[in-house]
């Protein structure tokens, strides 16, 4: 870069815009976590429906044990990303804090339901949280498909309340598909195009 001060105001503004654009967070990084949790949750919802409703298997809820290896993979991904990170952005920090809070909320809700009983119509509350996490993430990332996915999850949360426990699992799967999985693939695709 030239040390000369002989550059015009227009060039200065152009330089500022170019540099700011270079700090735009690599949005594709976020998609890995959405895809991991999206597919695990989707598989668990569908799996539990098959086991409970179609096969009448008593211990249908065991599919949710998938959450534990997913958590380990998620933590590992987070640690490796942190090591490679050369810049801390406000959005990055906000996303980390949001999903830390979401993780704690899922855990707290599980503890509450362990006390109140899991046989009640509990899925709408989890779907509500799916919507919250993705709606806010979409707003942080200025990524409309995720915002719309979050809104759709909230509609599905309300609608799920009109159905029995078994079919609520399908609403859960649908909510994860529209709020996590589809937007995550779109985010990945957008990032690939931006890098070309």
């Amino acid at each position, binding site marked *: *870069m030239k040390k000369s001060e002989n550059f015009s105001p227009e060039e200065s503004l152009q330089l*500022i815009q170019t540099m700011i654009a270079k700090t735009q967070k690599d949005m594709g990084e976020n998609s890995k976590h959405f895809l991991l949790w999206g597919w695990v949750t989707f598989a668990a919802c569908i799996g539990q429906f098959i086991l409970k409703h179609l096969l009448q298997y008593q211990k249908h809820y065991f599919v949710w044990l998938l959450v534990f290896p997913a958590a380990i993979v998620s933590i590992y991904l987070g640690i490796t990303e942190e090591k490679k990170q050369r810049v801390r952005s406000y959005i990055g920090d906000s996303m980390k804090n949001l999903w830390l809070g979401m993780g704690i909320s899922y855990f707290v809700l599980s503890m509450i339901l362990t006390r109140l009983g899991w046989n009640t119509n509990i899925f709408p509350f989890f779907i509500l949280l799916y919507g919250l996490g993705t709606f806010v993430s979409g707003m942080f990332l200025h990524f409309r498909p995720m915002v719309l996915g979050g809104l759709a999850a909230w509609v599905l949360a309300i609608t799920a309340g009109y159905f029995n426990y078994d079919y609520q699992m399908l609403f859960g799967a649908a909510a994860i598909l529209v709020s996590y999985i589809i937007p995550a693939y779109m985010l990945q695709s957008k990032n690939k195009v931006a890098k070309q």
Partner: protein
Amino acid sequence: MFKELDPILHSQLRLAIMSLLIGVKEAEFIFLKEKTNATAGNLSVQINKLKDAGYLEVLKQFHNNYPQTICKISPNGIKAFEMYVKALQSYMNPGGNL
């Protein structure tokens, strides 16, 4: 009326550094070098000038046994950057002055 351009910021590399840092919490030296395509020596000199002017905070530490330099824009730096941009705008929109 044309406003005076801050000579500390009216330098391509220093302006590039400040522009990179204005939108983030903090960034490593390596990140700044990669984005500005500057040499390590020149980048270091300009960062020190900005630090001496009070526009940047620089933290040197070790990470995994390697030296690490982290830069962050200071509140004075943010004010100076904002004033610089406003001054630039006075050149772009001279208010009828030709």
